[in-house]
């Protein structure tokens, strides 16, 4: 019997495959395709204190092996999530991660309080969204502010706190250590890399927001490298993400040091990608004669 189960800050996941925030809505759409409780966990669309309409379209552009997006945190607000979306996910037996983003520290605190009263399983602190003018990534690129916001939210949050890191920083290790010192229970990385595309005929950027976040296979080597560096410098469990499209990518990310992986952009191509990754991980372990996924976490053999 192969054990694919992992533990993120005391929360048990039946397997290490999570759907990444912003790519899976609140799970409803994909539940038309399959039983979404087969996933390790679902990280829901980034939530704000009040409803947000997001940025104008176009909000997406394809790039070589990647995708740029500038949704800008469109969401119905945290109260709607708790009241209208969370019950269905919990009824189905899903492990739910609530991704929260604020303009101010006070907003993060109020959201943490609201989520604390719900049966959400984990909270992901979004201090890395590149598509909003205030808050978002502004909190995530400076060690002092990462430390401060992590510790303040942690005090007001009943659930284990995951801090989601931006790759748009000079030193990912220093940022990760600040989150750890601030009391984070886990880390997730990487959010998208800021990018841009220009239409050479109209000379206009393709995204209405001019710039957006790059995801997909193009960013995978950066994500692997950052997860590996962070693994070597903190003790926190890591959810690794960035271009994970198939089980080989997932194995690579786990070997680099991730306890779990999140799948995002790959869903746009293949709605079944997360389930195929779970099956592929199991086959990999069987073929390697390994009976527990935990035996490969961080087991890259560096030169």
């Amino acid at each position, binding site marked *: 019997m192969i054990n694919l189960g992992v533990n993120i800050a005391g929360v048990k996941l039946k397997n290490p495959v999570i759907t990444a925030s912003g790519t899976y809505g609140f799970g409803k759409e994909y539940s038309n395709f399959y039983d979404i409780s087969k996933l390790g966990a679902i990280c829901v669309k980034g939530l704000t204190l009040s409803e947000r309409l997001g940025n104008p379209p176009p909000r997406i*552009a394809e790039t070589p092996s990647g995708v740029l997006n500038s949704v800008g945190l469109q969401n119905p607000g945290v109260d709607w999530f708790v009241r209208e979306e969370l019950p269905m996910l919990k009824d189905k037996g899903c492990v739910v991660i609530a991704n929260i983003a604020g303009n101010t520290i006070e907003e993060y605190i109020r959201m943490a309080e609201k989520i604390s009263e719900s049966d959400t399983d984990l909270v992901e602190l979004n201090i890395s969204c590149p598509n909003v003018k205030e808050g978002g990534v502004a909190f995530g690129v400076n060690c002092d502010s990462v430390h401060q916001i992590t510790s303040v939210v942690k005090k007001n949050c009943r659930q284990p706190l995951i801090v989601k890191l931006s790759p748009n920083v000079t030193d990912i290790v220093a940022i990760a250590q600040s989150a750890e010192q601030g009391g984070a229970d886990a880390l997730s990385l990487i959010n998208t890399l800021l990018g841009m595309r220009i239409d050479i005929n109209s000379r206009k950027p393709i995204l209405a927001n001019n710039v957006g976040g790059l995801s997909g296979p193009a960013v995978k080597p950066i994500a692997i490298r950052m997860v590996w560096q962070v693994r070597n410098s903190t003790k926190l469990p890591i959810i690794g993400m960035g271009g994970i499209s198939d089980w080989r990518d997932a194995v690579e990310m786990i070997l680099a040091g991730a306890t779990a992986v999140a799948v995002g952009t790959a869903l746009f191509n293949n709605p079944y990608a997360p389930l195929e990754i779970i099956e592929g991980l199991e086959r990999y372990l069987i073929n390697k004669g390994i009976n527990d996924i935990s035996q490969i976490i961080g087991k890259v053999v560096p030169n």
Partner: protein
Amino acid sequence: MNPIVALCPVIEKKTVAQGIFDIKINSPELAKNSHPGQFLHVKCGNYILRRPISICDINCDSIVRFLFDVRGDGTEWLSTVKIGDTLDILGPLGKGFEILPSDKRAIFVGGGIGIYPLLATCKTYKAPTVFLGFRNKSYITLIDDFVNYGAIVDIATDDGSTGYHGLVTNLLEEHLKTSTSDMIYTCGPKLMMKKVAEIAREYNIRCQVSMEERMGCGVGACLVCACRTYKKDGSETHSFVCKDGPIYESEEVVW
């Protein structure tokens, strides 16, 4: 009906104008569940993003037809598929057109490649009126299909090389001076649809429009294909072309 991922053999492929291709696939699953106005999300080679393409026609409970214009790398790839190749298609997706009883009066206003999603709806009516606009006569496609389905077709071209010389919306306005309709269906450039919506409002005729936007997931999860629309209480919001559309009541859209 829930969407599915289907592997569909290409059974017919034609070039109907420069850069415009007409493909028929065999998929009983898609054909039985597709509604006119819905779209297919077609995987194009190794490109990550699928390409959303409207359903043009559905036949014999097994054949789905779509036409597309080569716009970029993805559609360029799609133009190279051959009869017998298999396409990976996610669909049917989105909300289709609302179809009235077949003896009702229906007008169809299409512009350029926007005429394709109208055909399958058009054929459900006994005597539909169709106005189609094209850049010039070399871009004229699908007329015979509309005629074969019993439509009275009038054409406008930007350069006057065939039919009326001018905007297709002028044909609609002229028609409504002496006639009315129970519904107007439109698809084409946004400015054209906006004008059709204005005319429909002026004559107090219900109008459904087919909107377009760059898409990601195609199922309503990633929230990229935003369309500015009115909520029931009159406030504005961003709805999603892939899930809330592509077909909207013209009065729902913030033009």
